């Protein structure tokens, strides 16, 4: 993706909640905007900024969306804290070219997102990310692995 396009996309992210809340044209993402979903856009924005931070390699942005006491889990990480997250997981951001949101299912402070991510080398990692929000920030995150290489620096 060209830099100009990425900047434009970031601008859209920051300026339009409507765009943020509709990552795809699927019925799933549209349904997430209904009465049962988060309609004020704040919680969705935190999740969208999570992915934007990884794409932009912007640690400052990442920190802004995380609640105090944040913990990160995956098949390889059991409720690790912010410092461990930065040390173990953040280096993956350097190898992420793009993350496309396939589906979002929102239920109160629980946000479930299925994504198709691509490394700089074009390898696919399709995962399901579960966010637990607290006051509009991400208090907990857990990743479940789908097909593909699981995460950019897995070595697969």
């Amino acid at each position, binding site marked *: 993706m060209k830099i100009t396009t990425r900047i434009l996309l970031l601008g859209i992210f920051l300026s339009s909640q409507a765009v943020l809340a509709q990552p795809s044209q699927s*019925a799933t993402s549209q349904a997430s905007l209904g009465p*049962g979903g988060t309609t004020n856009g704040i919680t969705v924005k935190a999740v969208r900024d999570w992915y934007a931070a990884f794409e932009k390699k912007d640690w400052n942005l990442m920190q802004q969306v995380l609640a105090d006491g944040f913990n990160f889990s995956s098949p390889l990480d059991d409720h690790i804290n912010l410092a461990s997250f930065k040390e173990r997981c953040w280096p993956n951001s350097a190898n992420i070219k793009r993350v496309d949101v396939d589906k979002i299912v929102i239920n109160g402070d629980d946000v*479930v997102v299925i994504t198709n991510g691509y490394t700089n080398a074009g390898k696919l990692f399709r995962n399901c990310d*579960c966010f637990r929000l607290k006051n509009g920030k991400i208090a907990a995150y857990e990743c479940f*692995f789908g097909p593909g290489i699981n995460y950019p620096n897995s070595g697969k």
Partner: protein
Amino acid sequence: MFLRTRDQLSKFRKITSPKNQIIVKMTNLPGKILLAGLLLSCQAGFAQTITGHTAAFENTPNGKVVRAWYTAWEKADWNLLTHTLADGFTFSSPLDDHINLSAVQKRCWPNAGKFKSIDVEQVTMNGDDVVVIQHGNTTSGNYIRNLDYFKVKDGKIMAYECFFGPGINYPTNTGK
């Protein structure tokens, strides 16, 4: 992949089960039979929106059909499983790319009946999308924790996709 000790798993489960979540244990046989009866007699599924982690899960058509899915795998009840599925059903996992029903029976069904228990830890429902985090143990004592995504259509499961968490992923996985 790493394997967890029993103590580690206990800690993991405790942390991931805060007070405001309802752990739904599917070990009550009469309840399962009633569930199956409800499933078979009520095909009028409709979209619903649920608030809360597992609130009202058991009282919704989509929740019922998903519960029946797990019951079928626990009891190795192929007839019940097929009653939960819509025409054109597809099954996906990190190892299966939208396989059809006959492929499920051949490739995946040998796992049925090898679950000691399946505990529904968290349900996130919105309309016809149902996401379940579940964990349990195999009959041989191995731990499984996965996330299941169900796409429901007219009260039946149209598509299923499994995402793997820690543990051995599925009972017949001999690679772990």
